[in-house]
């Protein structure tokens, strides 16, 4: 029995026109639990899908191989929302608007604002509230 793991993925669809329902197959054929954060997939246009998949390493591997057979790029670093550390003024305006605490005051003395990408659910609140446009979305 192998361990159950969760991986965050960002899928890029360069003009996706397959009829295949990806999430359906990931769930049914590979026994993966799928949590979609954000999706923008329109026929005839570029698309993006950010999701968590939970299952055994092996199942995830096989699921990814399936996705790979379609015209889809898999980005395992999954950075749908990024924070430009140089642009960030560390004011802390975003902190109370971040629902998961992915943006937080990391050091009480220097009051540095830290971005923990793994905790980000891509609600995009930080992009709306940042006065310095330090946060950005890949799509």
């Amino acid at each position: 029995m192998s361990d159950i793991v969760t991986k965050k993925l960002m899928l890029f669809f360069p003009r996706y026109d397959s009829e295949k329902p990806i999430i359906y197959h990931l769930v049914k054929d590979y026994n993966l639990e799928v949590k979609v954060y954000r999706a923008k997939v329109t026929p005839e246009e570029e698309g993006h899908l950010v999701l968590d998949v939970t299952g055994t390493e092996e199942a995830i591997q096989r699921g990814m191989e399936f996705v790979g057979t379609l015209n889809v790029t898999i980005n395992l670093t999954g950075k749908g929302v990024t924070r430009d550390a140089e642009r960030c003024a560390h004011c802390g305006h975003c902190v109370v608007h971040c629902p998961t605490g992915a943006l937080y005051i990391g050091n009480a003395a220097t009051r540095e604002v830290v971005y923990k990408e793994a905790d980000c659910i891509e609600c995009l609140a930080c992009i709306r509230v940042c006065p310095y446009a330090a946060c950005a979305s890949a799509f």
Partner: protein
Amino acid sequence: MKSYEQINDRIESGKAVVLTADEIIDYVDEKGVEAATEEVDVVTTATFGPMCSSGCFLNFGHSKPKVRMSEAWIEDVLVYTGIAAVDVYLGATQLRHGDPANMYYPGEFRYGGGHVIEDLIAGKKLQLFALSYGTDCYPLREMRTYFTIDDLNQAIMVNPRNCYQNYNVAINDSDQRVHSYMGSLEPNRKNANYCSAGQLSPLLNDPFCETIGVGTTIWLAGAQGHVYAEGTQHASDCARTPDGIPMEGAGTLALTGDMKQMRSEFVRGVSFRGYGISLGLGVGVPIPILNQDVLKRTCVRDRDILAPVVDYSNDYPQNTGKVICHVSYEQLRSGEIEVEGRKVAVGSLSSYYKALEIANLLADEIRRGDFRLTEPIAPLPKDTAMKPLAARENRDE
């Protein structure tokens, strides 16, 4: 007792003892006021935050043939041309031409005066477009060109109101989100925003402006600038704690400095959704430790500084003057305050992180002997209050 001259002599000899307003607190706790006054020459203070009343005078030099600009835009941002031929004033809050502002509420305000100022200092090539009615001495009627800050004869920042001594904590009493220059305020007091460097802030370390005055040399975004006057709305006659610390906005400073010496990481265009454009600016002010009283005032702590909590859905816009309560910066920095028995999450618009960085950079410059202190040539006005604007129906009223 120490004089400015003695302090500058120590700076020149490389022996000056310089601490930040953050460090001086523990230092005095340990050494005592008397010994610390003897030892410490300068305490550095700083702040970084949106400062709307900022801008700059630019001089373009003359084209061939010459032009007297009567209307001009830099990167489509309108600049003021009601001065001499090729001088303009660029204001931080000016919107870009064609920005829909709040027509589709809340507007995004992605680019404006503050961003042009940042881009200028970052050395970017910018577009100038100017129109003129044409005169005998200035015949050219239209000009479109591209320039960088190096092409300009002068680029002088002139900010009528910076460095508020203290400031409101904004909260939202309504059931609708409020978009303000104090950031995004969720309905029903879900969050509060403050904007001050607290114990590190220049005018909170010199609450009666005993050392900061007209002519004081300051650190303005990396350049050596000056206080040229009291800031607009300077209101030294304000509510104070028993220790003399202002409990409201109170004092302000008018600042100037050479933009060619500035660093863009301390001059940042700011976009407030639903409100508009501003300029995030970093300022450092050295305080000469002339005597024990001056030193004691630099030991102010976040817990001793109180800020008024004000509703930005009704009381602020309607100018009712109502203050819900006062909270300390220590409470604000904990991330949660209590307002009328309920806990409220707190965010900030002022960057303590950058302010600390500036206080340390300024301290290093002084220690290296690159920054001298200046005695003010005039004090800031005492006992000034802020007058409201009366809405009069006619001239005789």
